């Protein structure tokens, strides 16, 4: 008997458009879908299809025009900026295409960054950071600056930063887009392991079909419209 998982993300009637002068450009139109807890979902689509915008809306870093986004039972579309910032700090882990590490901070300090917003002691923070870096296989590089690491290693530091707060959802926007094939494979392997071994819900935007193959669910966006469930 198949286990029915509770949705961790529920999107209802979501629309989003951008303004360019007086011109209104629709990006997402009437999106409705759920993401079950512990799933690994890949959002695919051509450039400009709205997949990154949808990811941003789920992660609470952009605002919807209409509709609701519920994450872990909370309606994030009704939150203020301050509430959203607090919510993101504890519920969402971000993995970006260009790693987006702070160049003047070491790998350790970059991973520690989100923990500065918590009440953890210095010792507790150290334990969390070391554990996260160990999970991504970079415990021996914690004192290195981003410029002293390869692209793949930087992305692994970014993953450690994303998981260090033990978030509800991990969002990844083209996480292998800036990597060579070998490094990309390593990163995809790592993301898949976070889903399989630690039960993390992962939403990954990619245009690479090979990367998407790692996901359990693949949804495609075309011109702002989500295709039917496969």
């Amino acid at each position, binding site marked *: 008997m198949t286990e029915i998982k509770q949705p961790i993300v529920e999107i209802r009637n979501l629309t989003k458009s951008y303004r360019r002068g007086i011109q209104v450009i629709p990006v997402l139109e009437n999106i409705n879908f759920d993401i079950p807890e512990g799933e690994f979902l890949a959002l695919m689509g051509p450039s400009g299809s709205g997949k990154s*915008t949808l990811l*941003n809306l789920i*992660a609470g*870093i*952009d605002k919807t025009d209409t509709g609701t986004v519920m994450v872990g039972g909370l309606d994030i579309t009704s939150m203020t900026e*301050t509430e959203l*910032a*607090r919510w*993101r*700090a*504890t519920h969402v882990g*971000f993995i*970006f*295409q*260009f790693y*987006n590490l*702070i*160049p*003047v*901070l070491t790998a*350790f*300090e970059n991973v*520690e*960054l*989100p923990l*500065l*917003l918590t009440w953890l002691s210095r010792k507790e923070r150290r334990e969390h950071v070391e554990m996260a870096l160990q999970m991504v296989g970079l415990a021996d590089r914690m004192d290195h600056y981003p410029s002293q690491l390869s692209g793949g290693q930087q992305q692994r530091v970014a993953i450690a*930063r994303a998981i260090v707060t033990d978030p509800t959802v991990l969002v990844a926007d083209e996480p292998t887009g800036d990597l060579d094939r070998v490094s990309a494979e390593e990163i995809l392997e790592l993301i898949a392991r976070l889903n399989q071994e630690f039960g993390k819900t992962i939403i990954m935007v990619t245009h690479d079909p090979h990367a998407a193959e790692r996901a359990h669910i693949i949804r495609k966006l075309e011109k702002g419209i989500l295709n039917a469930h496969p």
Partner: protein
Amino acid sequence: MHILKLIFRNALRHKLRTALTILGITIAILAFGILRTLVSAWYSGVEASSSARLISRNSISLVFSLPLSYKEKIRQIPGVKGVSYAIWFNGTYISEKNFIPNFAVEPKTFLELYPEYVLPEDQKTAFIRDRKSAIAGRKVAERFQWKVGDTIILKGTIFPGAWEFVLRGIYYGAEKSADETQLFFHWNYLNERLKKTTPRRTDQTGVYIIGIDDPDQAAEISEAVDKTFKNSLAETLTETEKAFQMSFVTMTEAIVTVIQLVSFMVIIIIMAVVANTMAMTARERIGEYAIMKTLGFGGWHIATLILGESLIISTTGCVFGIILTFPTAEYFGKTMGSFFPVFKVSIITIFLDIAASFLVGMLAAVFPTWRAVNIQIADGLRKIG
């Protein structure tokens, strides 16, 4: 890892740019400090004035003299404690570039009324006894390497001829504000020589210095003095020493105003330079600020980063500027000592330096902070890559 550490590392990210900005602030604070000190030096005579002294001069102009006979009449006015007199001599030492303020004075009463000019008792007695003697301030003696017993020859300009004096004493100021660049000699010596050369100029003095018992009575006593000589050939204008000194400053008020304006302009210019640096910095890091906001950092965290960096740069420049102000002021004071007898960096100037640098740091960061705090995360992230 703390936010402060990140602020420091950010400040050192573009070392050359930061160093040049700090250099700019250092020079600006130095210039501001020196210009403020210059303004203070301009007013030093006013600040050194005693409220227990009045100056009485010819009501037409300081150029015109007063008869010596006024001395006894002034002394009899109620509230007057002592009277002395002095006349501007304007003698030149060797050449005109060696400017020394020099006056013919009545030594005993003059030194009684100016307790801030301190000299050893034996030198004081020697000066009072010897009619051909003079005393000089510590700074002027150091400048020309004069020693007690040296003969000094001044070339008269108002009173032509070569005037020879024996230096009997070197005075120093009891207070920092006391002028140590002057030379005083006997009025009697001047008067005796004038009797032989230009008798019509004898028994005249430039100003009367009036010591009073109660500074609160200054207005009444001044009025009484002027009333005494009303309708005489040489009417007097009596005022407090402060007002008398202030009248000299007023003559050059336009210059002082310009110096003050320039000092503030320097601060405004450096504010624009720092603002430009901070705007560039914030623009370059807008993506990083977006990342931090994504991670949950709030607007005030971002504001702390930008304001903190701006303040670190301005404060560092301020510290270097203040450190350099002291030796520069000392050098300037030595070079321009004859024009500015007191050229000391005041504590108020230091506070103004600190306040100016704080203001520069804060205002320079306002626009970049506002921009970074208000940028939408999605827009900020689009600037990366």
